[in-house]
């Protein structure tokens, strides 16, 4: 097994301060397959509260499958997913958002036929009636989508779509946000803007983020912890700063 420096479910303490409380999201020995292909092969990792955890790796490393298995869209063949002490491995997809986990799937996931505002409202549907101020807050975070609130969502640019789906997920008031390749196809300036905003939300509002990204450089620049995935296995878990500094690892797995 190549270079497995951190293994099992113990997260590596990061950024100087140590996390002693149990992790918000624990993924233990998770295995799942697409047909005959084993996409996840015993993946264990944790995402701590108030942190950004970035799962990195090349195309086909199992990043998307990891998030889809965590949120129940793909059923695991073994292993556990524990959210805040509660085993959610076999919980229904529809129940996840109510448990505090919002998954923004790959490819933006805007509902093109609905207006921008209706898309946002879908994020708050399960909560019942929601104060207007909560929508205003999202529009304040993303002024660019505020201008288009009554237009159909298919007129939005790629960056605006990403803002919309993140805003929609925030309206669900999640404790942990699962983001699948938010930087995909976006200009570097927009990526920096979105990642900067995530950082602020994590720091100021205690949001937690589990991010999967192929764009390792951008992801590590904003994340606290990095987990490198290769062919369905965790290769290394370490602080984002350490991973950034490890030239061999970057060349071998992260492509920069």
């Amino acid at each position: 097994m190549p270079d497995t420096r951190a293994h099992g479910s113990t997260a590596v303490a990061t950024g100087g301060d140590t996390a002693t409380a149990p992790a918000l999201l624990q993924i233990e020995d998770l295995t799942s397959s697409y047909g005959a292909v084993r996409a996840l092969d015993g993946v264990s990792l944790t995402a701590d509260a108030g942190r950004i955890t970035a799962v990195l790796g090349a195309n086909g490393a199992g990043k998307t499958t990891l998030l889809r298995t965590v949120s129940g869209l793909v059923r695991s063949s073994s292993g556990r997913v524990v959210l805040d002490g509660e085993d959610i491995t076999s919980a229904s997809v529809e129940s996840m958002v109510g448990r505090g986990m919002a998954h923004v799937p790959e490819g933006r996931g805007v509902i093109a036929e609905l207006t921008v505002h209706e898309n946002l409202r879908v994020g708050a549907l399960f909560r019942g009636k929601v104060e207007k101020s909560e929508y205003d807050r999202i529009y304040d975070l993303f002024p660019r989508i505020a201008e288009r609130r009554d237009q159909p969502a298919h007129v939005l640019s790629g960056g605006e779509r990403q803002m919309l789906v993140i805003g929609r997920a925030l309206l669900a008031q999640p404790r942990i946000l699962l983001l699948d390749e938010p930087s995909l196809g976006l200009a570097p300036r927009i990526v920096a803007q979105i990642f900067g905003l995530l950082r602020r939300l994590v720091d100021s509002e205690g949001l937690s983020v589990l991010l999967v990204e192929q764009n390792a450089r951008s992801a590590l620049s904003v994340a606290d912890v990095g987990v490198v995935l290769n062919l369905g296995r965790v290769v290394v878990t370490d602080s984002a700063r350490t991973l950034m500094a490890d030239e061999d690892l970057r060349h071998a797995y992260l492509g920069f």
Partner: protein
Amino acid sequence: MQYFVNVTLTGLTEGMVYSAFALALVLIWRSTRIVNFAQGSMAAATTFIALALIQAGQSYWVALIVALLSGLLLGALVERVVIRPVEGGPELNAVIVTLGLFVAIQAAIAIVFGSAFQSFPTPFGLEGFQVGDNRIALTPNSVWVISAVLVTMALLVVLFRFTRIGLAMRASAFGQEVARLLGVRVGRMLTLGWALAAVVGSLAGLLIAGGEFVYPAYMDSLIVFGFVAAVLGGLDSPIGAIVGGLILGLALSYVSGYVERGSALVNVAALVILMVVLLVRPGGLFASSTARRA
């Protein structure tokens, strides 16, 4: 001139019913990408339930409400029991299943209610209003037909535009996975969509039956007209279905009113209209499929 007005009025009334039926098809197509060929048989079944009640001495209105409620149940039942198991498989499977259902329900109607022609009553008169010295082709019953369809459409607009459940239904139709991830019970919404479509289809069946003879296959031509109207409008668009229904109703009425032996040509005319529209605008008049792919 008076003849033209009468032909137009007849066309509008018929077109309204085509619109309603097309709307039922569109509701299901939008949410599940299935053309429900059983819609006509389902509507016929509820019409026969209404007829049985009326023959047992109940009023038209009681029969109407019971029929619409049975449509609701039937739609939900069909989605849960018959459609759900084949969903996610090849798209053709579900269509074949609805074709099978079309035949099966018609057979069931014949077994339960017999296959004889029976006359179906109307709640209002069939004699045209008097305008000046002339009677026009607008009857109290056609006013009822037009208003029933308009009210139904208005209720659907309110449901889909202004209520949370309507938003959940639209989200389920257009973004199934995203909706599930955001906690929408997509399965329930699809069942509800089929149930509502069956209610609208049943209403169309009851309205077209008024003043006519019904038999197990009496909806067959309405299926064709409703389908043509839905395709005219682009299959994806409720407004398209309504406009498509009205255009078709008018066109068929003009063919039958102005072409020699036109009433025999009505079915052919429907096909010609369908072909011309598909050649000129393959996506239908109100195609929104480009937006969908974006």
